[in-house]
């Protein structure tokens, strides 16, 4: 009965990240793969949810005050003016906000630019809407954006560009300069921008989260998507939003209503409490994650990984296997799970371009920037073992100190077994 499946469903594959999580569960591995916390959510926010359930906020609901608060915060942090009644749609998580945004603006045949490495879900939403994902590779080791590559990726069919900052999986926070370039191009090419800013409150050191929408000419062509999940450690509550120009926000709202009708009501109420957290909450959030980042980077360096790029935000370290390690990322992670009892994510699932490190080898591919994602399945599509797209591992550090210490312990013990230094 496979012919009973829609073409769209047939083109989608199961999430490699979720599959690995299942394997990790079966092996009882320490989960440094999926990006959700294993420490409790803030008590005040949980209490707010409980109070809401008790106070009978359990029917279909739209909590307008969330929009009011989001507008207020956007003004405060990014200097942007939006109308809480017209520019904001509450959705079931950033996941749904993004899906609805794509369904709202992408027509059959439209192209959407994505920066590689990219979170796997974007492509699937675009494909589901009948659009074509087009990948522009960020350059390792520091994931810099090359202007020429970006320009070359535009075609008359380019409808939108997706920007995820702070970035999953690299932890990069796009700088003002980079955002300026992207903004310029969007304006000149009449392109819509869709941003995923779920890690907006997790930045370190001098890295500052800047919304692309705050750049000149961008407010009228940007859809911001975000949620409470990562900021308040409640990834299972499903409350997110889209902030967009009036017609698009309205379309997103209408789509959301047809997709799910409303976001869970008691958690909308709790979200309101969360959004009103004092500045100290965000300070401590940053501090806690900063410590964990440092711990993780240090650990990975000691064990032999090449951490070229210290994450500036988000909750992941994207580390490269050393040249001395003969394994691919998939092979390494399998060993990591079964031998060391730790789960992480092989980076190949995030890479979609055919471009290789060396330009001389691949002048053809530079001239042909439209990289159609082949059905990558489980990390097919790379041609050489030393291709960087098979050499990165993503480690999540949004875990309790106990978990991270236990992981460190295991890694240290298994150091030799993991043959990082063998040829």
């Amino acid at each position, binding site marked *: 009965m496979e012919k009973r499946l829609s073409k769209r469903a047939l083109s989608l594959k199961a999430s490699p990240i*979720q599959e690995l999580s299942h394997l990790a569960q079966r092996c009882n591995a320490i989960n440094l793969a999926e990006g959700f916390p294993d420490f409790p959510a803030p008590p005040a926010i949980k209490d707010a949810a409980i109070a809401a359930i008790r106070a009978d906020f359990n029917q279909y609901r739209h909590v307008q005050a969330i929009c009011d608060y989001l507008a207020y915060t956007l003004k405060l942090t990014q200097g942007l003016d939006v109308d809480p009644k017209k520019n904001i749609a509450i959705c079931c998580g950033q996941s749904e906000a993004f899906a609805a945004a794509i369904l709202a603006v992408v027509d059959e045949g439209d192209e959407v630019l994505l920066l590689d490495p990219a979170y796997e879900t974007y492509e699937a939403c675009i494909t589901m809407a009948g659009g074509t994902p087009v990948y522009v590779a960020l350059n390792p080791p520091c994931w810099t954006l090359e202007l*020429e590559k970006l320009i070359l990726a535009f075609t008359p069919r380019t409808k939108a560009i997706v920007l995820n900052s702070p970035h999953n999986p690299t932890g990069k926070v796009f700088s003002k300069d980079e955002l300026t370039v992207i903004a310029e191009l969007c304006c000149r090419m009449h392109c819509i921008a869709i941003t995923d800013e779920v890690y907006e409150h997790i930045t370190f050191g001098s890295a500052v989260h800047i919304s692309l929408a705050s750049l000149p000419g961008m407010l009228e062509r940007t859809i911001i998507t975000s949620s409470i999940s990562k900021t308040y450690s409640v990834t*299972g509550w499903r409350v997110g939003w889209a902030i967009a120009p009036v017609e698009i926000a309205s379309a997103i709202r209408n789509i959301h209503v*047809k*997709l799910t009708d409303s976001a869970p009501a008691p958690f909308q109420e709790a979200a309101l409490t969360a959004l009103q957290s004092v500045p100290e909450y965000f300070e401590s959030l940053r501090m806690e994650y900063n410590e964990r980042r440092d711990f993780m980077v240090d650990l990975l360096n000691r064990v032999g990984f090449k951490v070229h790029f210290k994450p500036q935000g988000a909750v992941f370290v994207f580390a490269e296997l050393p040249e001395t390690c003969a394994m691919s990322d998939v092979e390494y992670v399998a060993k990591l799970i079964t031998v060391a009892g730790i789960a992480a994510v092989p980076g190949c699932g995030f890479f979609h371009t055919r471009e290789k490190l060396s330009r001389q080898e691949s002048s053809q591919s530079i001239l042909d920037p439209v990289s159609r994602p082949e059905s990558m399945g489980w990390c097919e599509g790379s041609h050489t073992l030393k291709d960087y797209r098979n050499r990165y591992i993503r480690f999540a550090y949004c875990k309790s100190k106990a978990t991270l210490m236990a992981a460190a312990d295991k890694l240290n013990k298994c150091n030799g077994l993991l043959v990082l230094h063998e040829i």
Partner: protein
Amino acid sequence: MQSRGVALREAIISSPALPFSEGLKPKPHICKLNKPWVRTIMASAVSTANSEQVAVKAQEPPPLQVSRRLEKFKTTIFTQMSILAVKHGAVNLGQGFPNFDGPEFVKEAAIKAIREGKNQYARGYGVPELNSAVAARFKKDTGLTVDPEKEVTVTSGCTEAIAATMLGLINPGDEVIIFSPFYDSYQATLSMSDAKIKTVTLRPPDFAVPEKELREVFSENTRAILINTPHNPTGKMFSQKELELIASLCIENDALAFTDEVYDKLAFEAEHISMASLPGMYERTVTMNSLGKTFSLTGWKIGWAIAPPHLSWGVRQAHSYLTFSTSTPMQWASVAALQAPDSYYEELLKDYRAKKNILVDGLKTVGFKVYDSPGTYFVVVDHTPFGFDNDIAFCEHLIEKVGVVAIPTSVFYVDPNEGKNLVRFTFAKDEDTLKQAIERMKANLKR
């Protein structure tokens, strides 16, 4: 001679507005850009034709577009009516959610889950315990045994189950049959899938399935048929005979059946029958349901789709990219809910029956022609005794001059004309509210 495209590209790169301009020089191999698309895109951005003086002049930007599939989408009628209702202080018997709350034991289960830290991403297709509870309930209701791991998918409400089913199993151009009147998300998600919608109208007084019309519309090109039983807005419950007719057509034409059974526990006058339990149907049916109506927790958004593995696959794929996963604490609470004893459902029915009697008797006294509603918590009535041209005009009058909200049913039809004599009331309200509404109508609604 450089092509216009290359020259423009150089101009963009060397434009002083771009911060990278100083470091960048066009490299020789890139100058071989002569692809037609490059010229086209650059040409469209340039307003002067002079290749020596290539200036990127900003043209009038095209209006921001919303995709074509949504051109018909507007704010729903429910929202519009609710806004009017608040404005006029009207008693709201329009939107179908209770104004009383869900049972304590289910709420406490959610609170317990939150306290126990069950606040992170649940497994995409459902918390295992909930999948099992759904399968167990399905077995109790239909006698069918399903594999909770492969055949049950948890979604954000039945609304999302419907969206995921349409997006996961329907190809652009596929013919899908729906019965008018229909819940508005069906048409919306079908048009998002670019399906060709075919409709068969159910007509008063008993809203029976018109066999001749159905046979005319059902063909080998039919990909699926959507059945909502018990039916919103009419309250109709598809009979064994009607389901057998539809089943035979499905099997004959190798079509799928999608069923929306959210009101299955609100079956007053007849027994609820699941299409999936008919011979030959399980393998081609997606059965959808939810927690909200049965447990008066419509805002929790816990629903599910039950289907054989080859169909569940498509539903799961779409679901994973629509919402990724469903609210975790609520899923745990749903496990407790679905394990409720039979007495819960008996009480529920008894409670709603009393409410139904108040409303139906009251509406009859006021002067409506009231149609029998065997299931759901809705009743449709003919408003024409009161002299209005159409349902929307009647509903507006009802809100503004009488202070009661009903839903105009024309929005539930492909051809609105077919529904203009009918309006829908809900009795999912506490008894005082229902009585108040009836009093207002008695006082202010005259033939």
